[in-house]
């Protein structure tokens, strides 16, 4: 009875694990196959490992441009998010001023109200007026503007930093700005790390915003956008191997970070909302 139960349990777990990993493995292995082998299907391991796929995808299918754009967007919006949200969290946690409640409720409001494509349109029009629609800065600014969750995470971390430190610094003649950079920021590092990971993951994986901003500017496409657009290309059928290599280029950095940081990542993500 017990053996039968255990067999069923493990069969179930292994099937779930297999189905979960299957598309990822297919992608990794597929990225080393020739296009003909891919579209003929039915081989699991590549007949001959085509390491040149990546070099060709990098050059021919423009993945060098896409990757650099992705790195630029992800890094810039991560840094921006950290600066903007840590400064806001600092004053909201430490200072008393008129309009504090209003600020916090606006932040909470923006987290819950999202009407998707509709807000994207006026954001796009705004960027045209600011002459930022032909650069990736428009995308970066919009990504930074969704910093409410980072703000709330940092606010809770800020609670754990004793206020006595601020007072001691003030008695020593340290200005609040200096206290922030010299004392608070170093102590806030764990919280900043969490937010950086979330912001980077979000920006790296974002599809719609960069897609809309690069509709007429293919040279600004990020990895997710460039990859999805290969699907619509007239020659898409003959480029499956590039699609697989591109998918790997976009998955691998996040996957490696995840594998190395798995334990803390799992704990942190228990509070994040996606799905």
């Amino acid at each position, binding site marked *: 009875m017990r053996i039968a139960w255990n067999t069923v349990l493990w069969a179930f777990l292994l099937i779930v694990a297999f189905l979960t990993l299957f598309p990822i493995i297919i992608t990794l292995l597929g990225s080393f196959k020739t296009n003909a082998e891919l579209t003929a299907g039915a081989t699991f391991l590549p007949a001959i490992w085509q390491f040149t796929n990546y070099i060709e995808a990098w050059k021919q299918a423009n993945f060098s441009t896409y990757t650099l754009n992705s790195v630029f967007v992800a890094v810039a919006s991560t840094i921006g998010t950290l600066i903007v949200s840590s400064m806001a969290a*600092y004053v909201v946690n430490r200072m008393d001023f008129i309009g504090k409640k209003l*600020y916090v409720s606006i932040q909470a409001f*923006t987290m819950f109200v999202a009407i*998707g*494509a509709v807000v994207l349109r006026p954001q796009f029009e705004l960027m045209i007026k600011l002459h930022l629609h032909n650069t990736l800065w428009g995308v970066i600014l919009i990504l930074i503007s969704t910093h409410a969750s980072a703000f709330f995470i940092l606010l809770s971390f800020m609670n754990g930093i004793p206020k006595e430190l601020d007072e001691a610094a003030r008695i020593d003649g340290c200005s*609040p700005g200096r206290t922030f950079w010299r004392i608070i920021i170093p102590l806030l590092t764990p919280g900043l790390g969490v937010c950086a990971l979330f912001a980077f993951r979000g920006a790296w994986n974002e599809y719609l915003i960069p897609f809309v901003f690069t509709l007429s500017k293919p040279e600004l496409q990020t990895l997710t956008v460039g990859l999805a657009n290969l699907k619509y290309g007239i020659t898409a059928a003959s480029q499956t191997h590039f*699609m*697989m290599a591109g*998918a790997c280029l976009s998955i691998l950095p996040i996957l490696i970070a995840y594998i190395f940081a798995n334990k803390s990542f799992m704990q942190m993500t228990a509070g994040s*909302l996606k799905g």
Partner: protein
Amino acid sequence: MNKAKNLAFSYSFLLPSYILTIVLGIYPIMWAMRYMFYDYKGFGTARFVGLANLERVMTDHQFWDSVSNTFVYAGGKLLLSIPLALILAVILNWKIKGRNLLRAIIFMPTIISTAVMAVVFFTIFNSYNGILNQFLLKYKLIGSAIDWLGVDYAMLTIILVAVWGAVGNYMLLFLAGLQNIPEDVYESSALDGANKFQQFRYITIPMLGPVMQMIIMLAIINALKGYESIMVMTDGGPIGKTNVMFLYVYKLFFPPAGSTASTQIQEFGYGSAVAFVTAVIVGIITILYFYGSKRMSHNE
């Protein structure tokens, strides 16, 4: 430090966040609220039309089709992913070998971009030269290619892909909820002769109530709003079979994928009205669920 100086400092630190939130968060919502009442195609002057846009929404068959598609999609996704996530969380909360590895594997899809995975799933499910069909054909498991993204199966396929991407996340949230159930409740019930199934039914489920209520609510909102992967995989097709509410809204604001931006006339005014109705529908369902599920959060 005096009060004025303190105030000036606080505002200066808050300014970047305030500006970004107001300009890129609040203003766009107001923009949509305003154009709801206008006939505006993105160029020329906007013409005030009152409630005409809202009236048009009420009789727009394409929109109501997309609403029913959304319900099918969200319902399917929830019915498959929530029970599966709960079962996995309960099992992986037991002290079994390799549970950390299994948790890590099942959570993995949630860290990957939905758009990227949609591309991969497209190459897998593609009827013409998809990997799955080629595989099934080679091993004679099917007689002829199945049109996974065709009229009959497209909805099922996108639901399965959505479940693949969501189970890990809900599992993790359930696991977090399970950690709060004290171990000795299980121990004493085991002494009383309760088996694992009875423990699940009479301890886990009731004690998980409040967490479950929250997780299902999040799942409902997410399922009603999700359209990124659908956009990449089927773009709402074939013949509108997988067109969901938010994808319909998107198409009123931006040209379809693969076409050039300049050739398409967009309907900003009407789109805003559709978005408003969509938001109201999501809101009503959330509130209905919240009150309907109140019993869940009471531990009797």
